[in-house]
């Protein structure tokens, strides 16, 4: 409950002193003015102290709306003054992560809160995937003339916001068009299934219920063959290196990867396949174990919306794993063959490949690594000549990705370089090939 005077108070104090001094020595009769100024300062000080005490006792309610990537994320602070002292004025400044972009509202404001009244303050962000802490509000009281200033305090609690990735319906449909089945689980190996595959000549021992009567009518004894139904075990591994956040707003590798994983997860869920998601953050491995169907999808979305971007930014270096990831994964894998889909950027690729080498060599898994191409974002703002110079100077680096790719492939990991746009399709095509 401390208020301090500002430089304006000092100016007023000087004025009061001068008035009193010149009056004392009979120069100008300004003593009353000086005394009135001092009394005014005392009055303002008293009011400021009371208002600061009221400020510290304010009740703050935080609410939020919208938590889907790319949509407005609205956060509202309802600040109520339960006391009879009006607070005029209070400067508010919202604390929010520096990587979030404000789409509506101001990050700071100067307002007054009437006695037993409330002030509502709303801001909107362009939501991006992950977990974000918004708030608390920082507040400072000032009297109407700005002569006294209170100490800075925090109002309310942090609002913990989890934003889900946006899913492309078009991409989801495209993935099903790649798949040879509309939703049932199948392989190209003939077996006991429901979906027709082909016909072949009858051999003794075949079930008579599978005889192809139309062929028999033409004098050929044949039986129908059906797709053998099977379940795939897909484990998505997302390497969260610091460079995952490099790029324009909503176009970073992390956001592309989150959208792809969300669509893939829905695809897996609708096909009834087993899926798991693990996030590799430094030497930490978090995620969800193999789950089937809708639950797997929900858990995946929850895991993606819980990625703490703040932690990623504060990583000292881009590093994934410390030689323990493969061991930890092996302990959680089912006995069936598992497709491991590792999604990473160039910065983390070599380290992750070292980690997953054991899994590739174990024979229990098919390990695929999808390296996202670095996007030369922001070239739109450059002149054609500048773009050309930029591309020439960074060309060597792009070529070095090819060398890295060769090295990774030597470890037994099937690595490919993809752009965010065709990553989901490439992944599904790989998985379909695995099914054959």
């Amino acid at each position, binding site marked *: 409950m401390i208020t301090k005077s500002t430089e304006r108070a000092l100016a007023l104090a000087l004025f009061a002193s001068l008035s009193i001094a010149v009056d004392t020595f009979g120069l100008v009769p300004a003593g009353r003015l000086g005394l009135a100024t001092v009394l005014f300062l005392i009055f303002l000080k008293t009011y400021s102290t009371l208002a600061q005490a009221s400020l510290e006792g304010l009740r703050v309610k935080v609410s939020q709306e919208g938590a889907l990537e790319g949509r407005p994320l609205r956060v509202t602070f309802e600040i109520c003054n339960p006391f009879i002292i009006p607070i005029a004025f209070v400067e508010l400044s919202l604390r929010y992560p520096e990587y979030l972009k404000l789409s509506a509202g101001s990050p700071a404001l100067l307002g007054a809160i009437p006695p037993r009244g409330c002030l509502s303050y709303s801001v909107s962000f362009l939501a991006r995937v992950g977990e974000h802490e918004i708030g608390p509000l920082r507040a400072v009281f000032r009297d109407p003339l700005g002569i006294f200033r209170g100490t800075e305090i925090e109002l309310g609690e942090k609002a913990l916001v989890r934003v889900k990735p946006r899913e492309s319906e078009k991409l989801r449909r495209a993935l099903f068009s790649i798949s040879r089945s509309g939703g049932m689980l199948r392989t190209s190996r003939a077996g006991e299934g429901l979906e027709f595959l082909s016909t072949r000549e009858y051999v003794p021992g075949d079930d008579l219920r599978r005889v192809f009567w139309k062929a028999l009518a033409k004098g050929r004894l044949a039986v129908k063959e059906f797709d053998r139904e099977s379940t795939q075990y897909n484990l998505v591994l997302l390497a969260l290196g610091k460079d995952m956040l490099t790029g324009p707003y909503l176009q970073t590798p992390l956001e592309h990867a989150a959208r792809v994983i969300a669509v893939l997860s829905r695809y897996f869920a609708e096909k009834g396949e087993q899926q798991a998601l693990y996030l590799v953050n430094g030497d930490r491995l978090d995620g969800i174990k193999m789950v089937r169907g809708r639950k797997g999808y929900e858990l995946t979305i929850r895991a993606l919306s819980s990625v703490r971007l703040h932690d990623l930014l504060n990583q000292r270096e881009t590093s994934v794993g410390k030689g323990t990831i493969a061991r930890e994964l092996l302990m959680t894998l089912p006995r069936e063959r598992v497709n491991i889909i590792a999604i990473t950027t160039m910065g983390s690729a070599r380290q992750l490949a070292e980690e997953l080498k054991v899994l590739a060599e174990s024979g229990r898994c098919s390990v695929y690594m999808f390296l996202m191409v670095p996007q030369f974002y922001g070239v739109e703002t450059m002149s*054609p000549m500048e773009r050309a110079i930029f591309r020439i100077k960074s060309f060597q680096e792009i070529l070095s990705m090819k060398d890295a790719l060769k090295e990774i492939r030597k470890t037994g990991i099937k690595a490919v370089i993809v752009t965010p746009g065709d990553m989901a399709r490439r992944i599904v095509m790989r998985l379909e090939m695995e099914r054959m």
Partner: protein
Amino acid sequence: MRKKVTLVPLFTLILLLIIGFIGAIERGPLTLSVYVGAHPANEGPMGLSELYKMLRANFSVILVNSWKDVKLEEKCRVLIVIVSPELPYTGEEAARIAEAVRACEEVRLLVADETGNANPILAEFGSEVRIGTNALREYPLVAVDAPWGSYVLLLDRPSPLFAHGNAEAIGIEIGVQDPQVYAFLESRGLVWGDGSVFLNQVLRSENSIYREFVRDTLSYLCNNCTILLDATKAQAMNPLDFFHGNVSPEVVPLVDPFSLLISLLSHIIHPSNWFFPLARLVNALVADLLVVSPLRELIIVATFIVLSLFISSRESSERDVPLREVTEVHWYGYSALKDKIMKGGSSLKKDDFVALYELLDYLLLSTAGVSLSSPEAASVLQNRGMSSEKAKALVEFMNKYYRRATGKSLWPPVVFWNSTTRKAISLTEEALKVLGYSLMEARGIEGRVL
């Protein structure tokens, strides 16, 4: 680290001091009186400080400055000691003393007086003894034959005593033809015609018989009782009188110098004695200074500064700055390189030309299956839609400067690589476009290269 706790704020402390200061001025100076006669506070030769010390060491003593304030318990035993009163007791005062000790079951008196001032006391308490008012001899030798011992004492101008009734004469002058009685013992106590025996100059003397006499007498008279030592009849003197010459010269040697000094100091340091003269002095000084022109302005400025500092020091001040807002940050790939190019700080060098050549060579090889150094390169580009002259010029230009950049040729001898590479970029862009790529457009070679 322990928190510093302020029990009394500085402001409150200063306010209290100012109030105390004003109160002290209003009340006036405290006068510590100086005694020259028989008073327990007098350390001089005529004082009773030695007697007081002796009493305090052996008895329960109450020093009586006002008999109104004496409060005694029921059924107490007291001995009233009166030594050489300098002023006579009135009948009212004697009655007040009797009233003060009325509740006691035993009241005894020790009156040592050579002036007769204590006679009203003796009368009030029903004593049969009276003190004469004139000393007959200066230093009579007196034999004391008392129940507590026998003594031969030399007295200092005592007054003879007169008694009727049953008072027993215990102190009789010896060595003269008409001996006087100087001490009577009666049921009420002892009446002694000389106070000098109890004074400091006698009790401090080398002859210890006086000290023994006093001690024995008091022990006899006060058996498990409280002694009331009367100090109401000693005359106080204002210490300033000694400086103003209002004191007779024979009194001066009788004053204890230390007591006098303390008394003077207490008088001098009191604000009522120096504050007003000082204020008057300062006022006069300021008034004089204000007459002088430059000093007048200086004083106003100094007062202004002092007042300003005082007012501003009451408040802790800080600069009023707005709250820091969050700065939104985005991280683009190759942002440092991009910034440098956009600011024009990146000039093209020989290595950049080599990179451009290798880029075109790579794309030509991967797209058309021929190298840029191959003789078919120009025709391949021509087949893809580039004009024949431009294709030939591009291939020739690129190979010529590539040989120069890689040291395979020394021609041309002087090359400005920045302008040469920029020209090469323009030529290459046309070739890249016919191959389906671009360096200059928003969607460039990245992605498709890989």
